[in-house]
């Protein structure tokens, strides 16, 4: 019985990201003046989940060997939409949440339809649709503003039963309701197969188009969940191009840190979530060591580069040079 060895090999990227996060977070809380308290964890969680949602979204597309550069803009668009709709009576609020998530899903579906049935390159397509989504966001919120149902917002950004950060529970719920079913469904496996070798997947009679379509659609939905949470944190909507672009690029960084291969077919959204946490923790570490926030991009860049280098250590072990290309 060496089944566990094969399992570890399969999940290596995810495990490394987890370990990296545990190390960084331990350094963070041991140096934090308040120490390992619920408040510290909740704050960290609230900072981390936004990128975690967008990184999960990016994972879905990246495992099919695609890339979605519009996710940050879907994130911003759904934020603006939520600042109009997620307010008022509980019923109105509920309707607003459904509408915002449907909007995210619709954006993802549009990406999927164009990429798959239009046979266009994902990069170009999603740059274009991202610009369109941002345009709509600007029309919705020419200037920052709006409101959100404060009870709901506070409930989802506070602590559940005074024990656990609510945002972390929400993230877990999304993993259980969206990621796990996807990973274990025929469609999810087809998505991995497509990313690993599209020709072999086709020859195996795997539903390639459905898999890619579902991946892009769910990515839109997840980015929409991210946008919704952004609204809960800020109580308002803002059509910020900088924010959208940052989240798009950071989601790719988080995915790489989480062991998801940009070539497709390898990796897990769980890894990407930890990748996102790692990326966020860098800023927190600067804070506890009293470094200027100005240093943040520099350090984030260095950690990302280091992580990519760690991934490349595997290449040092390669004894057959042909494996560099395989």
């Amino acid at each position, binding site marked *: 019985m060496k089944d566990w060895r094969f399992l570890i090999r399969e999940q290596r990227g995810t495990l490394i990201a987890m370990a990296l996060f545990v190390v960084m977070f331990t350094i963070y809380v041991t140096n934090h003046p308040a120490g390992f308290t619920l408040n510290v964890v909740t704050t960290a969680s609230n900072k981390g989940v936004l990128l975690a949602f967008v990184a999960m979204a990016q994972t879905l597309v990246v495992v099919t060997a695609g890339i979605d550069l519009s996710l940050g803009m879907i994130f911003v668009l759904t934020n603006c939409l939520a600042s109009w709709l997620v307010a008022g009576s509980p019923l109105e609020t509920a309707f607003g949440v459904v509408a915002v998530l449907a909007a995210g899903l619709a954006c993802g579906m549009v990406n999927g339809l164009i990429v798959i049935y239009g046979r266009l390159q994902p990069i170009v397509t999603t740059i274009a649709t991202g610009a369109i989504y941002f345009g709509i966001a600007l029309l919705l919120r020419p200037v920052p503003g709006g409101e959100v149902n404060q009870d709901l917002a506070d409930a989802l950004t506070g602590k559940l039963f005074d024990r656990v950060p609510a945002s972390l529970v929400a993230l877990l719920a999304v993993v259980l309701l969206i990621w796990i*079913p996807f990973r274990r*469904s025929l469609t999810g496996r087809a998505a991995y197969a497509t990313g690993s070798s599209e020709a072999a997947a086709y020859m195996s009679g*795997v*539903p390639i188009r459905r898999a890619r379509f579902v991946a892009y659609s769910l990515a839109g939905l997840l980015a929409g969940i991210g946008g919704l949470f952004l609204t809960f944190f800020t109580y308002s909507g803002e059509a910020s191009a900088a924010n959208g672009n940052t989240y798009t690029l950071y989601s790719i960084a988080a995915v790489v840190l989480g062991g998801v291969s940009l070539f497709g077919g390898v990796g897990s959204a769980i890894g990407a979530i930890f990748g996102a946490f790692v990326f966020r923790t860098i800023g927190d570490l600067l804070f506890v060591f009293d470094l200027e926030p100005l240093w943040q991009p520099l350090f984030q860049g260095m950690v990302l580069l280091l992580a990519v280098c760690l991934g490349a250590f595997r290449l040092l072990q390669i004894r057959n040079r042909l494996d560099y290309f395989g």
Partner: protein
Amino acid sequence: MEALATPLFRMVGISKRYGGVNALTDASLAVEAGHIHAILGENGAGKSTLIKIIAGVIAADSGRMMLDEREVTFASPAQASRAGIACVFQELSLIPDLTVADNIFIGDPPRRFGLINRRAQRRMADAVLARAGAADIHPMAQVRDLPLSRRQLVEIAKALARNPRILILDEATSALTQGDVTKVFDVLKRLRKEGLALLYISHRMQEIAELADICTVFRNGRNVATYEAGTKSDNEVVELMIGREYRHVFPPKPAPIPAERVPVLEVTGLSWSDRLRDISFSVRAGEVVGLGGLDGQGQRELLLALFGVLRGVTGELRIDGNKVAVAGPGDAKAPQIGMALIPEDRKTEGLMLPMSVRDNLSFAALQRISRAGMIDFAAERRLIAEMISLLAIRSSSNDEPVSALSGGNQQKVVIAKWLMVTPRIILLNDPTRGIDVGTKQELYGLLRRLAESGVAIVFYSTDYDELINCCNRVLVLFDGSVIRELEGDGITDRALVASALSIGANDAAKTGGAS
């Protein structure tokens, strides 16, 4: 004409054109349950097209297909699969990043509440791997980590997992070791007994003789003959296939190389990882040294090590008596070493498929035909024309993408590309795999001419006939060591098989250790 039982599957008047080429013309075929039906024909005879049509990969231009006497059309491999047709393709259809079990059940994994049940899948994978005679493959291993011969068994297991009514095997044994072939044959015979219809495509006549009940020969896109197995001699069959007078395939055996001739290539104590162990041999100018043994005993690695592809190789390499270090193909092809490697997989390591025949031919020799970094187009044209006529490469134009050529012509392009650097040492890695008889014959002739012009050749082949007829000497590898060296008339079927199975390997190891 025999039409006793109603055929399970029938195709009538099937035609298919690619551009201006007729791949199939009015072809028909009837397949019966409980029979193994062999399809024979040269590459380009239309076999692959025929199978792709049956498997739903491509659609026929005209003609009808009937399953259980009901007309069917398949728009995709998935549809054909649902109708009970499973195909083991020559180009493997496995997903490298998924596990063996994931791959076997890729189309229809066991599910509970709509989600894949990995535990049940694991169990079923164990069972189906055992059924395919591959119980030694771990279902949770990643396909990426398996050697080619294991992958082929996984591919067969994957087809079996669909419980097909018609199983198509397209060159399915080409990468298998002899032991695996026997196991697979037992499996196929059992399936025949269970009432499956099997379509079997192979270039290996012995396999067809052992397995087939009925044979159909294709030539130039038409089915030219269908006969009961065993009613025609090999010579008659080959004549049907190539449609010309059948000459002996191999050129006469080479004359012995004078012992006093100095070696061009000398290898001493070559080791790498745990795959190559203390290998020593030399090759003289004009000599063809074969590598034999079961597939996967280190032959491929040995060639890659010589060509500088592997890292961490120990041992000594001498060219013309001078010690050299080869740090990669770039070094290996430089004039002072002058080595060329004809790779195993022409589609990934040999050719840039979408690029033109011209570009593919001149890639390896670009340094030779450029001046100050600029390509000398006149020199390129001259050299390419020379190669195309030397190897009789058939293409409609040099600007045609090399992917449009037949398998045999593609292989010629790979060889020509390396001849353009005028190598003194040529390493060949199973160069005739999946190639038609006509092209094989041309390649054997070419090998002989190259040897006669003084090139030293190291030739790995999985086909023992080739080793027997083309080589001056054969090194038999087992588990990364040379366990036996056969020479001249000593290279026989019996000797090759016996030493490949490592019968008497202990003695060889003892003598090797004592000297």
